[in-house]
């Protein structure tokens, strides 16, 4: 109860704060979600992607 009251008083009491929370939350969620999916993808495909094999083809520093 105390937590929900705290959340309500912090994020929902003022509409400007509420809307800002939603907008910021959307950005934060998308960044976190996308990077998580990328990590999962890289783990499932380790050794198959260009980033895993390019070290053997880079001759000079580019």
């Amino acid at each position, binding site marked *: 109860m105390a937590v929900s009251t705290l959340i309500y008083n912090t994020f929902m009491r003022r509409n400007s704060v509420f809307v800002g929370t939603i907008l910021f939350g959307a950005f934060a969620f998308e960044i976190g979600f996308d990077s998580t*999916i990328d990590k999962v993808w890289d783990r499932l495909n380790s050794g198959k*992607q*260009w980033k895993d*094999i390019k070290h*053997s083809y880079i001759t000079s520093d580019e």
Partner: protein
Amino acid sequence: MVNRLSSSPLLKRVSSTIARGFSNSAVKESGSEWSNALSIDRANVGHSKVSRNTRAAIVATVATGGLAAWYAHLYGNPIKAVTVAEHGLHPASYPWPHNGWLDTFDHASLRRGFTVYKEVCAACHSLNLVAWRTLVGVTHTADEVRALAEEYEYDSEPNDEGEIEKRPGKLSDYIPPPYPNEQAARAANQGALPPDLSLIIKARHGGCDYVFSLLTGYPDDPPAGAVVASGLNYNPYFPGGGIAMARVLFDGLVDYDDGTPATASQMAKDVTSFLNWAAEPEHDERKKIGLKVLIITGTLWAISLWVKRFKWTPIKTRKILYKPPKV
């Protein structure tokens, strides 16, 4: 829910009240008519063994079956313009590294596949939709692709006199075709046009499996009875069996820079993977977005189920009381 309601003593009282309300004379009369009809039917059953309804059902079933058989006879076996052999042998399905929902291409294989395309396929087949720049970060480094592009000459912008000169290729140029136009391609190949390979994996039934089977499926001799027109080569996977392209992949045809032995099937696998990448450069992003969509919509679906139950629980679990009026 229904069980709980019907087992409650209140509801029993309600239903018995309803039954009492309906038990008037009209219902009784119609009920007796029904029972009369039923007794007549039973009497008929007595001497003919099969009731009229059963006979009607048998007749209807036979008629339906007969009609279906007649229809199937008329339309069920359409005349096929091609035989199975003319349709082309169906390829086996191979375990490609990129088959799974969350699998990307084997990029080392893509790099080898580009070598095969450049050394072998590019003699006849164009790759019009692939620009040099798209290879960067997929199969080669930027420097390597620049060096590859500079091996070819492209038309420059008109100079001050309006003349178009030749310049070395840049990253933004597209991979050059082997022939300037279709007529030149046909003239050089006995009238057969080597198709552009940019989308060939998408454009053929069977995709990778078909192209791999075609490349590795040339028998040493055509089977007995197969008629191959002059200038064509026998390949069971090609519709009709006669393909203008001869077998091109032989062991040791190219040198791979990563030391992989260049067997014919290895080259076929690599170039097929490369052509699949060329046809679907968005492949990785597509699969990632698919995963994201499934996760997000799955979560929203679960939430919507929960909300529905939350909202409907009081409605579904309420009990309706009936208080009969005092007479």
